[in-house]
């Protein structure tokens, strides 16, 4: 190590270093999520380009994709395609066509297993190409940390949005993705917990009124679901700092 004296302020200008009590800046720009409450909690005030975003929905059908639709519509305005890798169901064209011009939607059916990981391979290739606006991928449950790191590296070199859907059980395992959210359904809106971000731990659960087939008010109100309180993952934060 060379002993070049550096001013602390210069060091803090680096996007990968931030003060523990503030949100980090971003190396690349971000895309507004379309939800003011969410943007306020995201470093860079939006979904980061060139970084993996992990989404851990409790189950499907809670609005996990509708959460991303406003940002994806921004991508599509740039004439860049949205690529769906290993979707959890059959894409229903009329529903997609109502949100995006179909010319900009591409589906990649890939599988993993038997010693091959076609899903991670496809995502890496797409991110590395730099020609996609966003990649939405449903990663296999058993993906190694090494593969995730490769994906994060591929994302870092691009301007794409990279949304990785993983099963909720992954919340306890560490991941190189700089932004991780867990999603829960409720009758009042989509509950979003940012459990990892570059900045102070996010204590509050956001309740977002994502787009649904009919207004949220039409759904019978019940008390919000009480979710088990989670401890901020200090170990993960420390690891990020050490990088």
């Amino acid at each position, binding site marked *: 190590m060379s002993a070049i004296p550096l001013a602390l302020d210069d060091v803090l200008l680096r996007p990968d270093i931030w003060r523990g009590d503030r949100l980090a800046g971003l190396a690349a720009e971000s895309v507004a999520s379309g939800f003011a409450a969410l943007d306020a909690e995201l470093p860079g005030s939006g979904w980061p380009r060139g970084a993996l975003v992990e989404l851990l929905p409790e189950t499907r059908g809670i609005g996990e994709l509708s959460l991303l639709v406003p940002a994806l519509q921004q991508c599509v305005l740039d004439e860049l395609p949205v690529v769906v890798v290993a979707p959890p169901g059959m894409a229903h064209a009329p529903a997609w066509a109502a949100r995006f011009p*179909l010319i900009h939607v591409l589906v990649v059916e890939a599988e993993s297993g038997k010693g091959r990981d076609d899903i991670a391979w496809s995502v890496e290739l797409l991110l590395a190409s730099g020609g996609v606006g966003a990649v939405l991928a449903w990663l296999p449950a058993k993906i190694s940390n090494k593969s995730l790191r490769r994906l994060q590296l591929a994302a870092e070199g691009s301007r794409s949005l990279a949304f990785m859907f993983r099963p909720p059980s992954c919340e306890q395992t560490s991941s190189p993705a700089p932004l991780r959210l867990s999603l829960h359904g*409720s009758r009042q809106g989509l509950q979003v917990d940012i459990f990892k971000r570059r900045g102070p731990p996010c204590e509050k659960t956001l309740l977002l009124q994502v787009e649904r087939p009919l207004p949220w008010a039409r759904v019978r109100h019940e008390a919000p679901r009480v979710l088990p309180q989670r401890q901020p993952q200090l170990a993960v934060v420390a690891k990020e700092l050490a990088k």
Partner: protein
Amino acid sequence: MSGPAPKDLWLALHFHRFPLEVFDAMEQPAVVAERHLVVCANAQAETLGVVAGMRLSGALGLAPGLAVHDRKTQREVETLDRLACWAGSFSPHVSLAEPDELLIEIGGCLRLFGGLDVLCGLIREGAVTQGFSVHMALAPTPRAAQWLARAGQEIACLDMQDIRRHAQGLSVAVIGLSAAEMQTLASLGVRQLKDLFVLPSSGLARRFGIRLPQQLAQALGEAADLRREFVFPESFVQKLELPAKVEQATMLLFAARRLLASLAGWLSVRASGVAECDLVLVHEDGIADTHLVLGFASPTRELARMERVLRERLDRLVLNAAATDLRLEAAAPVHLPGNTLGLFAQASAQSLDPVIERLRARLGKQAVHAMEINDDYRPECATQSVERCDVKETKGGPPRPLWLLPEVQSLQERDGALHYGGVLQRVAGPERIESGWWDRGEVVEEKASVGDVRRDYYVAVSVRGEWLWIFRDRQGWWLQGVFA
């Protein structure tokens, strides 16, 4: 555009290990022999002391493990033709100088490639990745370029006046005279070209015939040197005999790349591209050929793109029988104008095509697709997978779920309420979908078609906050879609 007309500049490529390198890239010491004499040795053999012109028995004494190939002149001719096609990537003016040289006129295309250094770098890289050792030299006359290249003098001589200065130090061996003529020159004390330049041409003509003084004049640009231009074939079918039987598909990569390089050059001379080409693996004993179709997302002539697809396909190919020959066919080239470079180097949708090709090569053609709406009210039939979609507008309509389940799923009904991990609440509906009277539910391709449907659709919300698309028909309640 104005400016001086580009001068002729000839780039000579001398493949100095050509008889050997027409076979394959070899790791161990190897030579090519003709009538018990070594014609050509590779670098590994040369380090053991084996040189061209040596008797084969002597060479085997120096290097007992030496691989010996018989010289195949026919193969050399075919390979040089293939290289000429490849050279078409750089300039349409190519001419053959048998047995082991190519001449490319590059004066007119320097600007296109961004200058001399870049172009020469590309050409050298292309030759080396195909496994050919090459000496390159540049001169305003083809003959001078050839002589410089033969001498291994990698010089770029751009001016006619400089030829004499650059060439004078070369040995007279570069002219390619017969052994007897060389003897005569040696007895005259002529060893270098400068000794020849000073001799009167009439005297030279008397001793050696008119050819020698004519060649000297051609080299110096004092006499015309008309070369027959290589005629690029009308259609592209190139065959390559493998040096040995190949049992593993990945071993074909090297040979197949030589064929693709040749195709890429041929296509650029014809200003065309291919969306598909067929690599045929020929087997022995009358076993049917293996056809490996390399498909591209859009017509291309870009070698790197073709190679990536080739690599993916070969990785996944399992050979049932050993291959003896390769053949590359490009059946339907389409017109593809020159590459246009983006003004601000922006990422465009075009740049995704190579990625789509690679994905298709590995995952299968059907696995990577776009969608279009099929005009059918039945949800199962509303989506059509297409290779490429051109619909630029969004299309409104009643709310529909982003995902459909591959198979509809039966829902439990207890005490008048639907259950799906708890009681389901219906929040919208019913919406009647009644269609398909013409469809009798026949089994097509092992899958029953949807048939005549009469369904009432509802939107329902589960206790966990899942938004579902369910319907009721005569058989009961079903879950079909998920509002993700």
